[in-house]
């Protein structure tokens, strides 16, 4: 299968290559925010190419980014995250804060949400607090939902009046503004036992500016303006059609040919080719995702014991040397067209982002450190210490060209250091299954270096706790629970993480996160390669795209318009 896939991918890129750089440089370009002063036009249809097929739009089940991209026009939450990383009320009048809607009583917490008056579902029925309660109930009753994060911490929801819902949490849950990111219409699905058999998967009724009017499997999804939207005539476009295409290369070809107005998701390495095209704009948004290399501090073996020590990576001097020998800027300039920034921590954006700088590239310092630490070069140029040879493996997802090239750079750099690096890549279904039983090497501890990307939420509490607290090291004894893949164990780090979870005060949380992430960096267990960009592209006649790193580019569909 892998070979066939490769053949097809190679073949599809052939198509794209054939279309070639048909226009001279200039005219195109990259925008980071395309705010425009021209008067918007009303009406028209925009076509956006998507190269993955949304299997469902249902927020309870969906697990694809592309499903969020399409669903953005339809689904709204109680609150949303603005581009500046602050919350604001979406369906709710405002976001409750401590003392202003949020009350803490011992270990428990209550959040009082008030809906904006007069909001209707796209079918014309009113949105009430009963829908909030119903959403929570359904999320807890259905075993197939994607994540119950937050919902499982709720004890009860009171609905004193149709516009007020009091959400009672069992414990302090600081990420409550994130919790209700979409509401389920009670009046439609109250009597449906199995949501997976309803049309909610394809034509879900929401409160957003658009509604799904046509879902043709594998072909296209048509959104039309929702005349019951709470802001009258807010939408400029009448229709937005998401067109399925087989690959990003085909999407690029169609964008260049003018068959579509925009496309979802380009790779950093594809940007340059598209930017050259006149009439096309590349929108490179910052994204919370950070590409990293995690170093295993425990023994590299299946079902590794958290108490074990990696013979090579167990030495912090070795870990420091690997970081110092990783030329982040060179990788960015050479392989990513200089379009991204070097990473410094797992939280790159938002109110919680710390001002941290991870040590820069310095090969001499790396060599000195290894010399001092007693790692002696053998006849083959590879260092060893106390019988442990500095021979390591690096693992990433197969078929990702950028990552495979980065591996080649690292092999050379580390070789100069006296460290042997061998590639041991795996398909993403194996590498990223996050499942102990499916054999995810990160869970099982069977890796040396592992490269992948991951992003925290706007409140990084969940990420920081699951990934860096020592209680979350997966091992056979706890049935593989936790995502602390580097097996880092540090009492101060644990305490800082615990502190962040014990308070609702944003400033204090930020301080605790900054402390935790500083300690994490001082352990030298993760190399933050670069802050990934979220790249989409559109033709110049489609206007009104605005950057929001916390949402997909479709977040403000209602503000898009077409200009001749």
């Amino acid at each position: 299968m892998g070979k066939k896939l490769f053949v097809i991918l190679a073949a599809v890129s052939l198509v794209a290559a054939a279309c070639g750089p048909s226009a001279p440089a200039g005219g195109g370009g990259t925008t980071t925010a395309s705010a425009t002063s021209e008067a918007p036009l009303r009406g028209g249809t925009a076509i956006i190419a998507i190269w993955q097929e949304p299997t469902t739009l249902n927020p309870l089940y969906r697990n694809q980014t592309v499903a969020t991209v399409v669903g953005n026009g339809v689904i709204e939450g109680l609150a949303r995250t603005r581009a500046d990383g602050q919350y604001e009320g979406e369906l709710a009048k405002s976001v409750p804060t401590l003392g202003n809607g949020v009350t803490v009583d011992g270990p428990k917490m209550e959040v009082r949400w008030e809906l904006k008056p007069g909001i209707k579902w796209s079918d014309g029925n009113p949105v009430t607090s009963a829908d909030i309660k119903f959403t929570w109930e359904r999320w807890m009753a259905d075993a197939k939902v994607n994540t119950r994060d937050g919902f499982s911490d709720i004890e009860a929801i009171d609905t004193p009046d149709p516009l007020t819902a009091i959400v009672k949490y069992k414990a302090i849950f600081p990420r409550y503004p994130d919790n209700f990111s979409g509401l389920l219409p009670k009046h439609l699905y109250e009597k449906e036992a199995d949501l997976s058999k309803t049309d909610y998967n394809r034509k879900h009724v929401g409160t957003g500016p658009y509604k799904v009017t046509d879902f043709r499997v594998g072909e296209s999804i048509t959104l039309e303006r929702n005349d019951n939207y709470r802001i009258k005539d807010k939408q400029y476009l009448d229709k937005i059609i998401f067109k399925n295409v087989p690959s990003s290369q085909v999407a690029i070809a169609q964008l260049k040919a003018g068959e579509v107005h925009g496309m979802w998701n380009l790779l950093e390495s594809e940007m340059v080719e598209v930017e050259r095209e006149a009439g096309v704009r590349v929108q490179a948004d910052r994204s919370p995702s950070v590409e990293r290399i995690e170093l295993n501090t425990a023994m590299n073996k299946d079902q590794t014991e958290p108490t074990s020590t990696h013979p090579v990576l167990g030495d912090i001097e070795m870990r420091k040397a690997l970081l110092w020998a990783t030329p982040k800027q060179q990788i960015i300039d050479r392989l990513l067209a200089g379009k991204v920034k070097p990473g410094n921590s797992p939280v790159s954006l938002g109110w919680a982002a710390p001002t941290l700088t991870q040590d820069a590239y310095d090969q001499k310092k790396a060599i000195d450190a290894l010399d001092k630490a007693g790692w002696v070069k053998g006849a083959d140029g590879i260092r060893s210490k106390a019988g442990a040879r500095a021979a390591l493996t690096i693992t990433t997802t197969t078929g990702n060209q950028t990552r495979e090239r980065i591996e080649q750079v690292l092999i050379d750099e580390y070789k100069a250091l006296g460290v042997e690096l061998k590639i041991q890549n795996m398909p993403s279904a194996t590498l990223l299954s996050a499942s102990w039983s499916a054999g995810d090497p990160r869970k099982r501890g069977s890796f040396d270096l592992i490269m992948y990307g991951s992003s925290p939420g706007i409140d990084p509490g969940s990420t920081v706790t699951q990934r860096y607290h020592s209680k979350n090291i997966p091992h056979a004894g706890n049935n593989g629970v936790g995502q602390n893949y580097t097996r880092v164990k540090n009492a101060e780090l644990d305490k800082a993480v615990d502190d962040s979870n014990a308070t609702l005060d944003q400033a204090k949380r930020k301080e605790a996160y900054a402390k935790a992430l500083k300690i994490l960096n001082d352990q030298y267990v993760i190399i933050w390669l670069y802050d990934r960009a979220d790249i989409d592209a559109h033709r110049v006649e489609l206007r009104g795209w605005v950057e929001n790193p916390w949402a997909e580019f479709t977040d403000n569909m209602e503000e898009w318009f077409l200009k001749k």
Partner: protein
Amino acid sequence: MGRYVARRLVQAIPLLLGISIISFAILKAVPGGPTAAYEGNPNFTDEDLRRLEAAFGLDQPLHLQYVNWLSRFLVGDWGYSYSGGQPVLQLIFERLPNTLYLTLVVYLTVLLISIPVGILTATKQYSWFDHAVTGATFGFLSTPTFWLGLLLIIFFGLQLRLFPLGGIATPGAEFDLGDRLKHLVLPVATLALVQIGSYTRFLRASMLETLNQDYLRTARAKGLLERTVVLRHALKNAAIPLVTVAALDLPDLFAGALVTEQIFGWPGMGRLFWDAATRSDYPVLMGILAITSALIVLANLLADVLYGYLDPRIRYS
């Protein structure tokens, strides 16, 4: 004949069970699993992972997973897709029309072209027509579909702009026969050209062999028209190899054309299978494999029954 068919059908049951066990074992032997899809969600917890693995039955021993699947499958509950949670039967039946639409057109085009061409090349052996067709069919036979498809896209789609680059219809537009046909041309050409090559070769070879048989000389000696000799007497016998091939190709009508559907972005069964395979979506894969294997067994039976019709000397008991 009736008893023969019944016996063959009964024999098919253990065969299909065996196929399903092997397919299941192979799918499960592939490392990884469907949960990789949740990796991107920062709020996805280990608790969620366990709940989902339990809901999908992934936490059970392999043999139990199979027994659970089979017992539900037999009563018509084919399970739910791991990606999106929809019933497998629904996913299959909403794709099936698109695939049948493509594959039936291809199948008919292939038969309509290759039968007359095959007969003509055999009756006019060594003519310029025969040489031209022989050359062309060899060319198409040795062309991989993915390559041919891409060439057609590049030439007719990108350069000449005669046909769309892919898809089944212009998105969002009302139904329009012309638009549908335009989208159909390139994928049909890709699939048909290769298959026409193979069918024509089969028919030509067996026709040539049959045309030299004694009974045809007798038929001609009786004073029958050459047309009658070729079409009524020769073709019926010469068609047996072609019938075998054509009958065994029938399951492909359902399974779709994996590579071609992928290249042309055709929303059919081939792409459903492909996507399910990349997502480790076992219930969907098992559903498609089960139907396909049943169809292959039936197609074999159909081929055998057709032999009896075409050649009365073949008898079944």
